[in-house]
């Protein structure tokens, strides 16, 4: 976590973790990293529905006032019924352009406030997309966020990270940080 705190704005960081540390990592980012740096968080979930993340974090008493979700799984999983007005939705994790557009939408709504964009996770996105299109997506996203002085944090789950995924991360990110709790 110390290494993460040291990164300057506009950095792109791969956050590598074991599955057992997943919620600790989410909490550390939203409850420690972002507030300390006075950042709004834009949380792109392609792993579990935003509702589930919100419920889990509320139990842990994490303040989510400055966290905004881009949810790429709920529409695909259960249609339009389980929606939360605090999230914006992308129909499917294969619509990577729409993820770019929703992130840009939220950044505009934040009116120039500093932010961190969290991608949860590269492994989930890799299930639904070819690695070629995925690296193109990350490249465009990170360059765009750099131009807006925002942080990018990309989750990589140790259990599912292949060599190819690792290569993409080392290509697009400035630093890989191992989260060990």
């Amino acid at each position, binding site marked *: 976590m110390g290494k993460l705190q040291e990164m300057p704005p506009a950095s792109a960081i791969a956050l590598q973790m074991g599955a057992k540390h997943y919620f600790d990592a989410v909490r550390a980012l939203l409850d420690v990293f972002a507030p300390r740096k006075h950042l709004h968080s834009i949380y792109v979930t392609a792993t579990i529905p935003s509702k589930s993340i919100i419920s889990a974090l509320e139990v842990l008493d994490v303040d*989510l*006032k400055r966290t*905004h979700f881009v949810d790429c799984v709920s529409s695909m999983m259960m249609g339009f019924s389980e929606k*939360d*007005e*605090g999230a914006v939705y992308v*129909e*499917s994790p*294969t*619509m*990577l*352009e*729409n993820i*770019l*557009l*929703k992130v*840009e*939408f*939220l950044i*505009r*709504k*934040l*009116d*120039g406030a500093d932010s961190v964009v969290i991608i949860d996770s590269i492994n989930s996105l890799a299930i639904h*997309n*070819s690695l*070629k*299109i995925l690296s*193109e*997506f990350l490249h*465009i996203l990170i360059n765009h966020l750099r131009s807006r002085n925002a942080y990018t944090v990309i989750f990589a789950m140790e259990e599912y990270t292949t060599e190819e995924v690792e290569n993409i991360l080392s290509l697009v990110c400035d630093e890989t940080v191992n989260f060990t709790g």
Partner: protein
Amino acid sequence: MKERISVDNNEKNMISSRSASRGVAQAVEASDRVRCLTGIDGLDNILNGGIPKGNTTLVTGTCGTGKTSLGLEFILHGAEEEEVGIFITATETSEKLMESMIPYDFFRPKLLKEGKVEFLSLHELYKTAGISGPEIDSKGAASLIKAVVAAVKKRKAKRLVMDSVTSVCARLSTEDRIREFITGLSHALAKEGCTAILISEVPAGSDIYSPYGVEEAVVDGVVLLGNLERRGDLLRTLQVVKMRGATHSRAKYVLDLTSCGVLLAPLLKGGG
């Protein structure tokens, strides 16, 4: 759910992001024609600084692709910059169009009150031009151009949208008359320094730019709105097909209609 994001604090952001694209426009102006910033950042970037001033651009696409929204946004952004805009509507009432402007973060009621945004019905213009029957002859077309230009002059309008030009074309019936009408209109508007968007409606499933095939040839610019199916996903797209007086990307972009207006992202190629 909690405060999350407030909608009304967007003004500063719009101004800052727009002054950024103004920088681009100034750089371009030095060596190129004066530009009319659409205010849609993504589009202004594709055009390297907006539409060349006085150009007439066909915005074309099948139903529901965002043509009217793009036209309204063009007019609203102009009004913010003190440029009067006229929106000529054939089918939707001005009340309905005004209502659809309200959700925009950059909408200010005073723009309407100050007369910066003016809605005209095509029907009224037909009456002014003395057109009554279902068909418009050459004389009628000339009168219609006169009526439009008179409205532009009266308000010193710098932007105009006709939604849609297709409904006029349908009544002009022949290709020659359509060509004459659009050419005449675009020349007259250019003389007034008025940048225009003519909205064209094409039938679903077709890959043409306009129903009569003449429209796209005589206008200065063509912006194509469409849908793209990619392995079961339906994406909205925008492509600048031509724009006289500007160097521009011809690539396809993915479009989103939001309360911040039209947002654009490059279409990912993914090597295939």
